[in-house]
């Protein structure tokens, strides 16, 4: 029917499968994000470090570059080992934090500030689907910035070195993949939970940074005053970095961890505490979301 025939008619066509409806949210969110020049530039700029790492691998395997640099006899310029891939991961994940702090709060805060949740949840659309839809925006975006380029760097190195190196170092690939996902999950949950709680985008973004960096400062103060290492439990980057180290190197640490996620040798906490603390953090975020993501807020 033409739109100028100003009348109402019931809809009798086919419906989309209900499991797929949460995907409507990321589609609209990406259309919206594309309109922001700042975010688009920041997103593309985040691929600069992987390009530099790829270049380093290329140089490492190119004899003519060695001779150009006057280092014909040298075996290598840099070591491409666990430390190298931890650096790839560390840089990408810290950039992901900045992007999550800008993109995350714009997912839920405006809906809460404009009473939009009632409109979502008055449809055959659950709270879980809503959170999943909003989280998937961050998950897709942060995946593109972390494990996707990380695995590309690994694949390129494997291509250059051959199958023997690749099969011997598969642990790096799994470390990049699972290590990224741990960070993505924590960042996404924190960004959504804090923005649901604060409702004001700039404040929510600030809180994410605050939680990551200010809590680290508190942890350092506790460590300094109490002469202990347990203050690191407040340092999310330390906890994530500990798990990354385990994923990359097992229990024999040879490096100080990834940049921005450093774990100084001799200051490690039992690994189980990292898992427990991060799990608790996720549970708190789930609780905050469960309290705030409702069709109607009840004032008792």
């Amino acid at each position: 029917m033409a739109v100028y025939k100003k009348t109402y008619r019931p809809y009798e066509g086919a419906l989309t499968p209900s499991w797929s409806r949460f995907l409507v949210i990321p589609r609209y969110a990406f259309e919206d994000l594309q309109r922001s020049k700042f975010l688009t530039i920041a997103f593309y700029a985040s691929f600069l470090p992987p390009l530099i790492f790829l270049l380093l691998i290329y140089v490492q395997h190119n004899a003519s570059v060695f001779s150009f640099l006057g280092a014909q006899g040298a075996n290598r310029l840099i070591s491409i080992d666990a430390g190298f891939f931890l650096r790839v991961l560390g840089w990408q994940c810290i950039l992901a934090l900045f992007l999550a702090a800008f993109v995350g709060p714009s997912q839920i805060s405006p809906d809460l500030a404009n009473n939009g949740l009632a409109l979502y949840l008055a449809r055959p659309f659950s709270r879980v689907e809503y959170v999943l839809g909003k989280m998937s925006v961050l998950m897709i975006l942060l995946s593109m910035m972390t494990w996707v380029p990380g695995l590309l760097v690994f694949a390129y190195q494997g291509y250059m070195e051959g199958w023997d190196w690749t099969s011997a170092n598969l642990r790096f690939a799994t470390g990049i993949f699972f290590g990224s996902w741990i960070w993505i999950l924590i960042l996404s949950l924190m960004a959504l939970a804090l923005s649901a709680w604060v409702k004001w985008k700039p404040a929510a973004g600030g809180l994410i940074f605050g939680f990551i960096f200010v809590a680290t400062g508190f942890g350092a103060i506790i460590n300094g005053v109490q002469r202990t290492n347990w203050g690191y439990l407040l340092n999310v980057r330390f906890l994530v970095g500990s798990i990354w180290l385990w994923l990359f190197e097992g229990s024999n640490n040879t490096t100080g961890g990834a940049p921005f996620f450093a774990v100084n040798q001799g200051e490690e906490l039992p690994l189980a505490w990292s898992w427990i603390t991060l799990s608790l953090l996720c549970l708190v975020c789930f609780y905050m979301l469960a309290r705030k993501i409702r069709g109607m807020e009840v004032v008792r």
Partner: protein
Amino acid sequence: MDSVIELDGLEVRFGQRAILKNLRASLTGKAIGLLGPNGAGKSTLLNTLLGFHKPTAGTARILGRDIRTHAREVRSLIGYMPENDSFIAGMSGVHFVRLMAELAGLPREHALERAHEAFFYVGLGEVRYRPLGTYSLGMKQAAKLAQAIAHGPKLLFLDEPTNGLDPPARSRMIQLIQEIRDRGDLQLLLSSHLLRDVEECCDQVLILKDGNVAAFCNLEEERRANRRFLEIETRGGVNGSFLATVEKLGCETAPGVQGRIKLILPDGLEVRRLYEVAADQSVQIRRLSRKRDSLEDIFLKAMETADGRL
């Protein structure tokens, strides 16, 4: 007639506070009004039917589906126009309605087509590409109505649809609601504290007070009954003879002072016949008024009940 909404001992508590208390009613009208003073539980009832609040006891059925066990299915049948300013920030009007239609399950292209149609239907066709944030209050109300109907629901929940509208915008909104009602494609539940809105749009009314059903009436029947109840003022002739003749026609009569007579007409008897009888007997009917038991009377009577319980 099948129930549109059936309340079966529905009770909702927030903490220790009972907001809805053992509501029982079977609403069958095409357009059902939900009336009550502020805090009576109207919005809580709507929100409970939408699944936003869990019933503490009892249940409700919408078009035969239980809200406890078939919440998702129930919501797929409903279009909801909330009371408060509700929209998704940073979107144009048509983009917003399209998103809402897609979330209700419409495929992309259908959602876009229906979003445009809905916008034209509510009279916002020319501003559909403008950001929602720039809309006036009246336009926002209309946009909320557009998102509520875009996916073709079977039942429309309208929560205070004329809130904050100026008289022309209110009149347009009421006209739209009446149009939707008269088309017969979907049924309405209109919650309002404005008696006039309900009276103009609804054929059945549920009045709530303090979380109880204070009154439940069929406005259509009331209107029909009211049409049979007359008060006339007569002059001249012999009243006794006129009364006797009128009673022979099947009317119930109650004579008053100064030639006033209250009458209840039997079905099938037209008012014209009274004038004919009066003319035959040289009686003048100086005034004839239909004694209406208006919605306001019904509402006030309901409010007089101590705790609002029927």
